[in-house]
């Protein structure tokens, strides 16, 4: 893995810098949180009192995460490109450190988003989680995959003229192999019962493939 060839302190500096700027500007975090909150609240109100199957709830949860992530992740590279700081960053930092710094920042942002929206989702849809460990493991591996795919897609679309529309179109097929088993595992965590450990392995393996592919492809961008 090239991650181990780039300097860890560069990665840490980029993560810290992105959080400082992200928290000061707030727009990205606010967009992600507000999208997730609006989607969950409106869907909860429209299905109020009706029994909703666990499978549907699991899919709904990941759809909210996907689109809320899209509202924030797309700007990871585009904001730098627009501000003119990307050439400076590329001059002073290794390419791999930039990629992994951004990827870790995106992952931590998605973790913050999930910490915010998951309790609201569970309360509003009256979900009693039967297997909380499975839910956490699924979210953990699912978010790694979205962060890896989202960071690479953001890097790819940073120089495109119609990046707003292009980002979700490119991101969806890349993340589909993560979503399908993640939805299945989330359903099991909501409904209880034995879970298929191979699904969790598939998500983790696809994370690894995405991270490796991103690491190889980023050098050519």
């Amino acid at each position: 893995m090239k991650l181990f060839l780039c300097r860890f302190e560069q990665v840490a500096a980029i993560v810290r810098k992105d959080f400082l700027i992200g928290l000061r500007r707030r727009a990205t975090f606010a967009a992600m949180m507000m999208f997730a909150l609006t989607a969950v609240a409106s869907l909860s109100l429209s299905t109020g009192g009706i029994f909703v199957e666990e499978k549907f709830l699991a899919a709904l949860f990941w759809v909210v995460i996907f689109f809320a992530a899209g509202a924030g992740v797309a700007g990871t590279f585009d904001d730098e490109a627009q501000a003119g700081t990307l050439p400076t960053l590329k001059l002073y930092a290794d390419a791999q450190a930039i990629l992994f710094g951004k990827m870790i920042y995106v992952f931590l942002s998605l973790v913050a988003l999930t910490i915010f929206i998951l309790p609201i989702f569970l309360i509003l849809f009256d979900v009693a989680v039967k297997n909380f460990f499975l839910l956490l493991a699924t979210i953990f591996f699912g978010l790694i995959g979205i962060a890896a795919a989202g960071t690479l897609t953001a890097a790819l679309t940073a120089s495109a003229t119609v990046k707003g529309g292009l980002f979700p179109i490119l991101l969806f097929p890349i993340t589909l192999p993560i979503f399908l088993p993640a939805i299945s595992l989330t359903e099991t965590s909501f409904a209880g019962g034995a879970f298929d450990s191979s699904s969790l392995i598939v998500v983790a393996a696809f994370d690894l493939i995405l991270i490796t592919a991103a690491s190889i492809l980023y050098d050519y961008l």
Partner: protein
Amino acid sequence: MIVFDDVSLSFGRREIFKNISLELRGGKIIGIVGANGAGKSTFLKLAGKIIRPDEGSVTFPPEKKIAAVAPEMKIYDGLTAQENLFFFAKLRGKTLSAEKIFELGGRVGLDLKNFGNVRAENFSTGMRQRLKFAILLSVDANIWLLDEPTANLDDDGREKFFNEIQAAKSDKIILLATNDTAEENFCDEIISLPL
């Protein structure tokens, strides 16, 4: 030493460089001059491997560490002056103390004791240029690429800049692209690019 070996570069149909071969040695300030559009900034980008030639090659010293001051190399508006300095130095493996940051500020004429915690977005153009200059001095580098580096600097800023690069040139390859006569006169060697 940076070696251009038979380098050619075109943007679309426009040929910028054709079969250029030259050696750029350290220990002196090399001025890159020419009319607007002659390719001064492009020459710096080739010398910094920021872009690659269509043909030929550019080779570098074994330990290539580049720092630059150029109009398109922006600093982070959302970070304070101190945070910008700390961040870029950290990318090159250096941790700057508060004292070191104040000292760097003094060398470029930027009062970082009072303005260190002010975000760069609130700086004037000249103060930003001084901050870029402080970043240049703070990072570990053996190649400096300077594109119109004293633009937007007042006389005091220019004097400080010239003194610093004069003091630093012994162990660096310094390329300075300019249209400014004062900057040009300051160089030890001139490479003139035809339009």
